[in-house]
């Protein structure tokens, strides 16, 4: 069954595939590779900061590490893993479709992404590697000897890939749903990914414009951001964050979506207040996402009135996000919770996201932000809220889909020990980091001789980073072990009601033979009705 004509296992058939499942898996491989390299950078950064004084490198190299860690984690790991791997792999299966609406366009978006990864990695072999941080603020990015063009081209490739993927996915969800799958029966993950792609389509062009202007300023001699010739340095920051703040919701929405899937499946329970989650939570985030970018500019001399206005609109984001959390926790009420590895990751996510979300409130408050902006407090906060929470969701989803993707089961003991070690590691690292920040330590520092009292805390953060590294390594071993020696998986090992589990494991080309018949009272979360 799995080996029909045109679905062999040769390298050529993988590379030139237009099958959404293989494209999804190739996205996963690319993004995990980016995660590994960027994670290694993080460990190196933490070794450097483990003690005062130059430890293993010089400021120039250190700044390149910082740049690569940030840019790669966001642009090459999180966004592609969520909107590339998960959306590509899951959504056609979840809506009972044969494939994406435009399979060849899908392959194009994958190859744009891989080209982006290659350009990003070239950063390390060119002599003038960029050191402009993932934000690339001018005038520094214009004056720096680092090659800003590499940064700009990476953003262009990844952005174009996302736009193409977004158009494809939105079309797929609108036109390719299985007969009987109404909008009211879509999985939360489908809704949240739709929301994320709508945000991508609206905001990516703004980022593309901003970095293109940066490129022109540096290499063609325009003066968009040069005040001595009528430009404005703050224009870039406004344009950049006009995309890059909504980008955190592009990351948050699919993250929330996949967590809902995992929680509902392993609680064998209906999603609590489905309509509130879709309209209030997902819809609310999409509506409010474009109204908050000034909170990144609270200390940059924006007019006082807009700092106050954006404080209120930023705080209001807590409403849809709070509703999403209530829906998630409500789903646990009167449930039958089964603690598998993916469920542990989902539960871990709830606590990490709670800490991350609540520590966002001080940043949203303009007056409080004046002291903690650009300190390690911010670094700790956004690692909780987007870096670590999202990575937990991605790792959890890899375990969740492991049987479907590979036809084999992973080892629960390995999976669970990976989770426990990672969970301890991230809390040691990022909670301590927030304390360091409140004590005044700014971010992006190579050294901190002016803060000798913080050396002990920094050492703890570095130890935590090693624990996280160990956790990630155990996860990698668990996946390789599962691939090599895992037991054969059933079609529906988690007894889920959702459509993606109705096909054989692994799914054949064309996904469903025949397309599933959905009865009138079927619902993806229709547990507990029997």
């Amino acid at each position: 069954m799995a080996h029909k004509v045109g679905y062999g296992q040769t390298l050529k058939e993988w590379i030139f595939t237009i099958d959404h499942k293989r494209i999804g898996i190739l996205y996963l491989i690319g993004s995990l590779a980016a995660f590994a390299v960027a994670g290694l950078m993080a460990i190196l950064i933490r070794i450097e900061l483990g003690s005062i004084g130059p430890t293993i490198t010089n400021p120039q190299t250190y700044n390149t590490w910082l740049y690569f860690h940030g840019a790669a984690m966001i642009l090459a790991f999180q966004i592609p893993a969520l909107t590339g791997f998960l959306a590509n792999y899951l959504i056609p299966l979840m809506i009972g479709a044969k494939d994406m609406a435009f399979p060849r366009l899908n392959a194009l978006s994958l190859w744009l992404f891989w080209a982006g990864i290659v350009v990003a990695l070239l950063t390390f072999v060119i002599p003038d590697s960029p050191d402009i941080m993932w934000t690339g603020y001018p005038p520094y990015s214009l004056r720096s000897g680092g090659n800003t063009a590499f940064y700009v081209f990476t953003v262009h490739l990844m952005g174009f890939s996302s736009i193409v993927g977004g158009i494809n996915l939105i079309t797929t969800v609108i036109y390719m749903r299985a007969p009987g799958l109404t909008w009211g029966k879509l999985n939360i993950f489908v809704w949240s990914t739709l929301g994320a792609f709508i945000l991508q389509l609206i905001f990516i062009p703004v980022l593309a414009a901003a970095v293109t202007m940066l490129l022109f300023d540096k290499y063609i001699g325009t003066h968009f951001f040069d005040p001595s010739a009528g430009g404005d340095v703050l224009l870039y920051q406004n344009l950049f964050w006009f995309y890059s703040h909504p980008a955190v919701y592009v990351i948050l929405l699919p993250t929330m979506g996949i967590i809902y899937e995992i929680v509902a499946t392993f609680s064998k329970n209906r999603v609590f207040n489905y309509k509130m989650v879709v309209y209030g939570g997902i819809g609310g985030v999409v509506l409010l996402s474009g109204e908050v970018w000034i909170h990144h500019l609270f200390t940059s001399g924006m007019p006082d009135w807009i700092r106050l206005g954006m404080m209120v609109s930023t705080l209001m984001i807590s409403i849809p996000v709070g509703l999403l959390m209530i829906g998630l926790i409500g789903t646990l009420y009167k449930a039958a919770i089964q603690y598998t590895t993916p469920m542990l990751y989902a539960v871990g996510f709830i606590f990490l996201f709670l800490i991350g979300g609540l520590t966002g409130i001080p940043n949203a408050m303009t007056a409080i932000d004046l002291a903690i902006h650009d300190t390690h407090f911010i670094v700790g906060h956004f690692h909780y809220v987007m870096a670590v929470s999202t990575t937990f969701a991605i790792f959890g989803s890899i375990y969740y889909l492991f049987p479907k993707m590979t036809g084999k089961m992973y080892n629960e003991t390995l999976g669970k020990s990976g989770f426990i070690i990672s969970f301890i590691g991230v809390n040691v690292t990022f909670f301590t980091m927030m304390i360091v920040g409140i004590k005044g330590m700014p971010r992006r520092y190579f050294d901190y001789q002016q803060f000798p009292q913080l050396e002990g805390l920094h050492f703890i953060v570095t130890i935590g980073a090693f624990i996280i590294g160990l956790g990630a390594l155990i996860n990698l071993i668990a996946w390789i072990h599962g691939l090599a020696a895992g037991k054969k998986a059933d079609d529906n090992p988690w007894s889920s009601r959702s459509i993606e589990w109705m096909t054989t494991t692994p799914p054949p080309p064309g996904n469903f033979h025949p397309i599933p018949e959905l009865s009138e009272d079927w619902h993806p979360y229709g547990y507990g009705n029997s």
Partner: protein
Amino acid sequence: MIRKIINVICLSFLMLAAASTSYAEHEVRGFGKIPDLPGGWQHLFNEMLIDITVIGVIFAGITIYFLIRYRRRYAGQEGRPPRLSIAAAIGWALIPAFIFMADDLYLAAEGWTLFNDYRTVPENAYEVKLEGQMWSWNFKYPEGVETVNELRVPAGTPVLVRMTSRDVIHSFFLPDFKVKEDLMPGRVTYLWFYPKEPGEHLITCAEFCGVLHSSMRGTIIALPKDEFNKWIEDEKRALAEEEAKGGA
């Protein structure tokens, strides 16, 4: 059902009203008094910390209770959630939304008051000009005196710093005074702080500005008023002598 919805809406407005009265009751600050920025910051930060801890403990507590209470007892067990009526479903969206909104508006009102203090410079402030460059802080006093990486100020007088940059963006960060504002080429920004007692305080840069970003630091030295006046007179005299020499 309609009555239920009306109740929900009334309750929410009550909470909004509670938030706004707490804003009105906020202590009226006396004119001419210098607001205590780090104190006000710490006060609001603590208040906010209690706020988020309470929310966090409620959410985490309920989650932990559910996680323990509703574990699967036997293979094949499924959840038995209650079916929500339409009123309950709307209530479960509106009531939390209004509670969150009330808390947001309460915090926003508190933050607004403090932010106004941050941006309203006391009338008798001593004004210093600051120009940042890679990688030093260049101060210019109203008397014409200039210093690098060291700002001497009279203790007991609020200080206003007007800032700009020669090259890239820097950020003037005084951890002890809980203030920070960026320096940009082509723009002038300001902040003020109040060194109550004589003493030394750290200046450090908070916006990435290149290779020596982390070494871009300086000191604020608050001197007793007469000592400061003596220092500035000496500096002025030295400056005048230098100019006379240069002119001759």
